[in-house]
């Protein structure tokens, strides 16, 4: 156990990364890369998120995932997006977004607004982290 992260959490992240990879049809030979990135995302978000704001934790994790996916893209000659999407799935605020709309539908506007703002903060963190990662480790390819 490492600061709240158990081996089970890492295994779950690996399973999730692999499954998202299949759902998004990642080329089979890059399966392991997607798994590693999902584990990095989960590890980063949990380790940093334990002591700081969720937005900052997401920003740092997304930056690491983005930079690593560009490194993988350079090593394999494939688009960085192929590695990035399964890796970043554990960070995207789909749950908050859904809960926000669900809350609004059940007239719980206060919590719906709070969840929507949280989703926007997390999304903006990921977007700017990926832009920064693209700038720090630029792609060799256009796609």
């Amino acid at each position, binding site marked *: 156990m490492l600061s709240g992260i158990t081996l089970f959490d890492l295994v779950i992240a690996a399973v999730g990364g692999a499954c998202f990879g299949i759902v998004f049809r990642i080329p089979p030979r890059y399966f392991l890369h997607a798994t590693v990135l999902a584990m990095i995302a989960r590890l980063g978000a949990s380790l940093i998120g334990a002591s700081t704001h969720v937005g900052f934790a997401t920003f740092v994790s997304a930056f690491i995932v983005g930079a690593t996916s560009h490194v993988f893209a350079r090593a394999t000659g494939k688009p960085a997006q192929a590695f990035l999407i399964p890796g970043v799935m554990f960070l995207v605020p789909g749950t908050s977004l859904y809960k926000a709309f669900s809350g609004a539908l059940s007239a719980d506007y206060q919590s719906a607004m709070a969840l929507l703002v949280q989703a926007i903060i997390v999304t903006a963190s*990921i977007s700017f982290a990926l832009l920064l990662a693209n700038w720090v480790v630029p792609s060799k*390819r256009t796609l």
Partner: protein
Amino acid sequence: MANLSDTVIEKVSPRSLVDFLMATCRVAIECGCSSNRVELLVTRLGEAWGFSVDAAALPTAVFLSVRGRGQQINELVRLNKWSIDLNKLALLNDLVDQVEKREMALDEAVLKLQDINRQPPPYPLFMTVLAGGGSSFALVAASGGRGVELIAAFILGTVCQISLGLFAEGNRKYLADFFTAMMVAGCAAALAIAWPNVNMPRLIIGGLISLVPGLVFVNALHEVAQKNLVSGAARLLEAVVTAITLTFGVAAVLGFAHYLQRWNW
């Protein structure tokens, strides 16, 4: 691989470049490539073949303007469907790399693009269905679910993928999302009756994880941050409409279940 000779390249007409760029844009956007990447790609491909290309890519259309050899051609590519297919994106990446280095003729590249478009998924259907179950399992486990909740999440994830396979054809994306949300919510309600201790909202979100528009939302802000305002706004709207569709699908079933409960069914 040997580069094509300069005389061959000089004989390339703007029309054949436009045909190739239109086919490339179509495959790239349908595979989930971002608009700014598509615009950059077609500009670079045009330059590599001695043409000046301007492009404006949106999730639903691409506008192209190709100038060179004393001609100007303006074209519009209309797009009706888009998803994420990383295998096709990787194949497209290899192809455009060869075309950019002028190692392949444009006519041949158009034929190869048609092959990429017809490419079957790299995984069999049953594996995609199981992976849908696995992703729901992982999400529910990551958000604190344990025991029977994990089994229930796996079942709902597979239901989601089967439902998508049944309903998502052609331009019925939002209708497919609505029916899938209804099916997942219905199955979650049935599982909650069988296992009363499970957290039903968590199961529904877990089951619908491959549909919730978190990634679309991220891509939208990513495009806005790169000053691709129209494309970003379009994706943002897509995320909102998808979230509303899923919410209404779930609400329809839960509302119906609520009435059944009131009438002691």
